[in-house]
């Protein structure tokens, strides 16, 4: 099979994933089930339907410690630019401490962490995993794939939030994630990008909570 050509199977797979995403957006559900189900379905499609290795879609757990460090560093850089001036430096430990005390009083809220991680992982598998790999096979220039993928993630974010600035932010972060996923595939896998995405959502929530 020529790896540069998408087969009918890929088309069907793409159609199913887009349909799922639209359904998720239409129902605007905040439950954990839909993202988790979608993640499982994406993985099943890759493994059993397309019969391709996970690592060709950016899913790999090799050198997991390096991936975690890179994910944390990426999150730190993005968050520094986004919220570097949000508080004075000495207030951060206090805010995070108060936030964590809130969580320890309501153990059920630990699901919140799992929920946002599932959301982040689902978006990363869809956009930086499947879409980006498909685009890479269609277009010879990686920049085109990265930009297209970033625009798609921005459009998806706009459908959910109806906020143009948030959509542009999604395009910008999508561009960074896509660039790193293509240029540093060993360090920035879907897992490490999901970690960075998760931290970005979590810190945004902390600041909004404050």
């Amino acid at each position, binding site marked *: 099979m020529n790896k540069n050509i998408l087969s009918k199977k890929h088309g069907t797979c793409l159609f199913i994933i887009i349909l799922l995403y639209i359904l998720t957006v239409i129902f605007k559900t905040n439950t954990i089930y839909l993202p988790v189900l979608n993640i499982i379905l994406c993985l099943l499609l890759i493994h059993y339907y397309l019969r391709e290795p996970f690592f060709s879609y950016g899913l790999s757990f090799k050198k997991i410690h390096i991936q975690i460090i890179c994910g944390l560093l990426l999150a730190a*850089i*993005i968050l*520094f*630019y*986004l*919220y*570097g*001036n*949000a508080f*004075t*430096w*000495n207030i951060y430990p206090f805010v995070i401490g108060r936030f964590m005390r809130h969580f320890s009083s309501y153990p059920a809220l630990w699901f919140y962490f799992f929920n946002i991680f599932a959301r982040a992982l689902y978006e990363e598998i869809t956009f930086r995993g499947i879409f980006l790999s498909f685009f890479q096979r269609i277009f010879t220039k990686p920049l085109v794939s990265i930009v297209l993928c970033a625009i798609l993630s921005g459009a998806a974010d706009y459908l959910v939030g109806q906020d143009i*600035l948030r959509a*542009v*932010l999604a395009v*910008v972060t999508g*561009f*960074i994630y896509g660039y790193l996923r293509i*240029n540093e595939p060993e360090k920035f896998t879907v897992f490490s990008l999901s970690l960075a995405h998760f931290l970005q959502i979590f810190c945004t929530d902390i600041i909004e909570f404050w």
Partner: protein
Amino acid sequence: MKINRLYKKYWFAFFIIILFDSVYTYVWPTGSNRILTISCVILGSVLCLSLVRFYLQEPLEEYGLHLKSPHIQLICILLITFTISFLAYYRNLTKDGTTLVLTKSTLKNIGELFPVSFTILLLASVTYEEVLFRGFLLTFFQKLTDSSFLGVFISAFWFGLMHYSSSGTLEENLERLISAFIFGIIYGYLRVKEPQKFTLFSLSIGHFLNDFIALILPAILYA
């Protein structure tokens, strides 16, 4: 080519450049005279490039200076500048009631705040910083340690330290240091990973735009 530790030429060039930079930064009374400052930073850039070309006799391409496909370089740096600036000012843009409107009075205000001489000084300064940190020092440490990561890291850390000033509070200085360090990491990484797209020419333009936006945005927002 990895530097032979006994090869004195590199160390001599390094020493001269650091000496010039230290004199320029800490000894010379640069703040008082704008033309003198412009001359100093231009001299610094010329000194760095001359040492590489004529003393070390190495191609300038190796130190990140070439003008191949300038349009690609410009597009890439504009993209990166937009990305960084958008992330940095995202919170300002989302504040209620804040809109970016360029009126005649705002433009006049900007013109008064940033005269031509200041713009030239800014352009010359950022060019000098790029030639020094992403040009000479990055390549020097890259060759010395035989590692791109260490080259980028050390030059970025040095770049961060240079932005730590004696005035201002500790928090302000730390923020400036971290900000410059992250900026140095991003630019250094791009210079090493994409040498055809991110050269000293394009990085200087990006650095200039970044500084210019940082200075101009408050003038627009709070005009």
